[in-house]
């Protein structure tokens, strides 16, 4: 069990940190800018970052702030794929650590900025125009499979083995990602909004009318 795939429903964690800022340190915003550049120029996509997050020590996952984890994941990815050299990065880090006000090089590719902004406005629609024959219909009872643990999943652990009702069959096939190892969501397939009674997931909750909706890839479901 990778805890990051089973976060939903984990008990006894204490209060939520209700911090409302997006970035709590200046470097986080700049790191986000680099990440967005990587997205907009095709260096990576969300699934690559998520694979890194799910592969972390779960205690570290809880311990470190969101963008600290991003920093680790981005550096690891860029080194693994040969975009940057680890020693070079370590040396430059030491340089900026000793000289925090040292300027960034006035180099770069001025076309990248427009490309990234264009990407922000365009996005990356996951719908694929292929023929789909959804095997479940609206109103049907479905059970969530208990798939083997994967490098990366889009199936929240707390839904495994649970039964819900198809609330909506989405009209087109969705491609999640064909470039990372997942538990079989890397081919375009139908997705379904499934409605679960929260009490069917956790029998001990007091609020028996509450509902949870989740968008499930077809491969995660079987007829109940």
């Amino acid at each position: 069990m990778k805890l990051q795939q089973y976060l939903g429903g984990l008990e006894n964690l204490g209060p939520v940190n209700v911090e409302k800022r997006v970035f709590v340190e200046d470097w986080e915003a700049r790191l986000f800018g680099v990440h967005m550049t990587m997205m907009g120029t095709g260096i990576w996509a969300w699934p690559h970052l998520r694979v890194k997050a799910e592969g972390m020590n779960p205690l570290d996952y809880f311990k470190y702030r969101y963008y600290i984890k991003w920093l680790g994941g981005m550096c690891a990815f860029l080194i693994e794929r040969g975009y940057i050299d680890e020693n070079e990065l370590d040396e430059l880090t030491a340089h900026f650590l000793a000289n925090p006000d040292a300027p960034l090089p006035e180099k770069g590719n001025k076309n990248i900025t427009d490309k990234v902004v264009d990407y922000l406005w365009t996005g990356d629609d996951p719908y694929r125009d292929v023929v789909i024959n959804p095997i479940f219909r609206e109103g049907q009872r479905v059970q969530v499979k208990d798939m083997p643990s994967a490098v990366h999943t889009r199936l929240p652990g707390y839904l495994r083995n649970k039964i819900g009702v198809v609330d909506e069959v989405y009209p087109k096939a969705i491609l999640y990602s064909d470039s990372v190892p997942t538990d079989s969501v890397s081919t375009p397939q139908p997705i379904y909004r499934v409605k679960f009674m929260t009490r069917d997931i956790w029998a001990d909750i007091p609020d028996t009318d509450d509902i949870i909706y989740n968008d499930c890839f077809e491969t995660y479901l079987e007829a109940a």
Partner: protein
Amino acid sequence: MSTEKDKHGHHDHLREGESYYAARTKALESLFREKKLIGTDTVDRVINFFDLEMGPFNGAKVCARAWTDGEFKKRLLDDCNAAIAELGLRDGIEGENLKVVECTPKVHHMVSCTLCSCWPWPLLGLPPYWFKDPVFRARVVREPREVLKDFGVELDPSVRVEVWDSSAQIRYFVLPNRPEGTEGWDEEKLAALISTEAMQGLDLVTA
């Protein structure tokens, strides 16, 4: 490089402090510039984009219009991406497929992403810290009312809670209840009442 370093090296870096993270981030951007993978103004432009173009001010505008124009609200609930274009708003990344869920006096909607941090960027900008907090993500699906209390919101027990846990590509947006005592207010005045949190179900709008 040892096997141990291969396995744990990158995580070791996490144990450093803020000045290290800042320096490493600067080193990263510096290398991107050297390798011409980025422009000198790209990072500033991205930050600026989320300050001025994609932010919660968009979502608030949509709510205010929906509160004051019933026909617009119908179109918004039916096809969010099409409806927001009427207001001159654009969709884009993390909002290719937006879906609005409407609170009523009997049903309160909350949005979560227990697997990562899916969030409707075109309407709300980037997700705040709390949404990405593993503790929020762990607790919100099982005990949404307790989580609301951490945000200072006490929900009437008779109200049903519906949690929308994003894990595919649909991005959910909550249309909160219009507060009492705002009859005749214009859209701008209404929009100013609406917090980011209210548009994901973690706050109630009051006048």
